[in-house]
């Protein structure tokens, strides 16, 4: 808890005009008191009388800005604090410290003017009524958001068009497939044309085609309505396709804030060399780690700092037909970041992560 002076969350927050930033987060922190008890009957009985609680830090003072119309991917392993952050920004949770404004509103004040402009979609939870046709659930949202008839029809037509909902609207939700249901959930959450979207795992459990569909739709919606999107996902493909910018959060702290490409450049200590040879060569491992080899085709992994030198040697010493130098796949990089951050096993990697923290902590 070595935090800067604890100020009540709402006391200092400034209500600036939401022109240059849609989402502004400063030192946002959230801790939970979780009951702690040992296993066993006796311990359980004791904890009935006196509850031992332990403070768990879910989000430990993160800061970032999101510009209007920006689509930002929120990456992190389970329990990293993504959902907690999203819940604070959508007004469901009070932070333990720090401040945030979204469209100039303090989210946890839950002003109607704010709630009317945002939406929250959670991949693992449904808000559509299970037993009734989708269209009837939409009617309910229309009344809740007091959407004028003409505007409602326009939006609905647009959403039907973009998501191919035509045949789904008359079916009860329980008769829809998971992918269809998610499409309907998304459309329902967007009927009031929100300008800020918080999407928590919107493609969870969907097949590849459905995932792509949802993805294209989110991009399309954001572009059309200049909407700001903060999106979490386990699927790298989602983030790669949608977000120019990613926030990497791990154990409640922000590890990285920047372009996806920069993330790879910063965190991956390796480059991938793909070579085609005139004839098979056996002792390739003297150049670097051989990831795959198939007759005349080989993939090598080499330290980033030596990539240029090794490339030169390869060209000089081997019968090279073709050669390319690439960054490793993003999810591989992310994986490295998380596993090293969690275990702390690799001191080099850790120091790299710490330097990465410098420019973004406020």
């Amino acid at each position, binding site marked *: 808890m070595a935090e800067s002076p604890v100020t009540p969350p709402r006391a200092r927050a400034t209500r600036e005009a939401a022109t240059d930033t849609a989402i502004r987060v400063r030192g946002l922190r959230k801790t939970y008191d979780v009951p702690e008890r040992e296993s066993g009957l006796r311990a359980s009985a004791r904890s009935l009388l006196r509850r031992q609680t332990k403070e768990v830090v879910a989000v430990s003072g993160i800061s970032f800005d999101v510009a209007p119309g920006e689509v930002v991917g929120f990456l992190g392993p389970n329990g990293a604090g993504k959902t907690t952050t999203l819940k604070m920004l959508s007004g*469901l949770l009070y932070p333990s410290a720090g401040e945030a404004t979204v469209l100039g509103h303090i989210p946890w004040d*839950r002003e*109607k003017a704010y709630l009317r402009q945002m939406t929250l979609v959670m991949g693992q939870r449904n808000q559509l009524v299970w037993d009734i046709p989708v269209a009837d659930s939409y009617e*309910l949202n229309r*009344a*809740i958001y007091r959407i004028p008839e003409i505007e409602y029809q326009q939006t609905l037509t647009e959403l039907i068009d973009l998501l191919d909902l035509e045949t789904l609207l008359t079916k009860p939700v329980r008769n829809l497939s998971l992918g269809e249901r998610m499409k309907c959930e998304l459309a329902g959450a967007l009927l009031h044309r929100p300008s800020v979207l918080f999407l928590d795992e919107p493609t969870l459990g969907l097949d590849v085609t459905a995932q792509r569909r949802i993805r294209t739709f989110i991009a399309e919606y954001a572009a059309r309505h200049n909407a700001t999107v903060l999106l979490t996902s386990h699927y790298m493909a989602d983030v790669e396709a949608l977000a120019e910018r990613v926030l990497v959060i791990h154990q409640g702290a922000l590890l990285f804030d920047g372009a996806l490409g920069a993330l790879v450049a910063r965190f991956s200590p390796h480059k991938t060399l793909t070579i085609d040879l005139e004839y098979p060569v056996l002792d390739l491992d003297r150049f670097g780690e051989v990831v795959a080899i198939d007759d005349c085709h080989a993939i090598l992994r080499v330290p980033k700092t030596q990539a240029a030198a090794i490339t030169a040697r390869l060209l000089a010493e081997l019968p090279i037909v073709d050669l390319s130098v690439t960054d490793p796949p993003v999810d591989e990089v992310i994986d490295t970041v998380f596993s090293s951050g969690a275990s702390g096993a690799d001191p080099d990697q850790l120091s790299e992560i710490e330097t990465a923290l410098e420019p973004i902590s406020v």
Partner: protein
Amino acid sequence: MTYLRLLWIHLRLGILNELQYRTNLVLQLIQSAVGLVTALLGLGIVFSKTDTLGGWLPAEMLAIVGVYTLVSGLTQLVVRPSLQRFMEDIRLGTLDFTLTKPVDAQALVSMRQIEVWKLVDVVVGLVVLGVAVTQLGASIGATEALAFVVALLAGATIIYSFLLILATCAFWWVRLDNILNIFQSMYEAGRWPIGIYPPWLRYVLTFLVPVGFAITVPTEGLVGRLTSPTLVGAIALAIALPLIARAFWKFGVRHYSGASA
């Protein structure tokens, strides 16, 4: 206006939903009939032994049965199923969707689920009440009718506030689904005028579980037994309890926002 519209849409959805399962109507008809017959048989047995019960005449007792059925139907039509669903929403985490809507969350959770067939109880209650009123005849004047309506509204407000307070506890204790069922059992004590119970139980049924205010007091108004202190007390409670329930609800939401994961 918005809230009336919302209530109307929920009612519509409730009807649409229930029309899919018509057997529910049959079951509800049977349940209402059994409830009514049991109550009438009970009265029959009592009045075969005596002419009055705690000072209540047969026609007056019939009025109690009517009010009991009416209030029961009204609470089970909207309030109880809605609050039951609210507790379910807390457990499933879907309350998040309610709390991110730009309408009053308390209002929304109080009308989210409507069990249309409970209207049968409302109708049965009104019919029984009508019969009782005809039997009581000329003794009911404008004053009695007014006292009845005011006391009934006050009673309904009290019961709603009380149920909301019970349900709000689910913010702390998630597995609380049975608490409303316990209330239902207590409510059944309201079939009889609370005056016939021993003083301690009368006290419980008035202040701890305010069934007395919802059933006995309005009926007293109807049959001209209501004293003004009781009526004033009922009105005072109908003003105070919603405020308390509202404050407790806000406290609960605040707690939910502070702790839920």
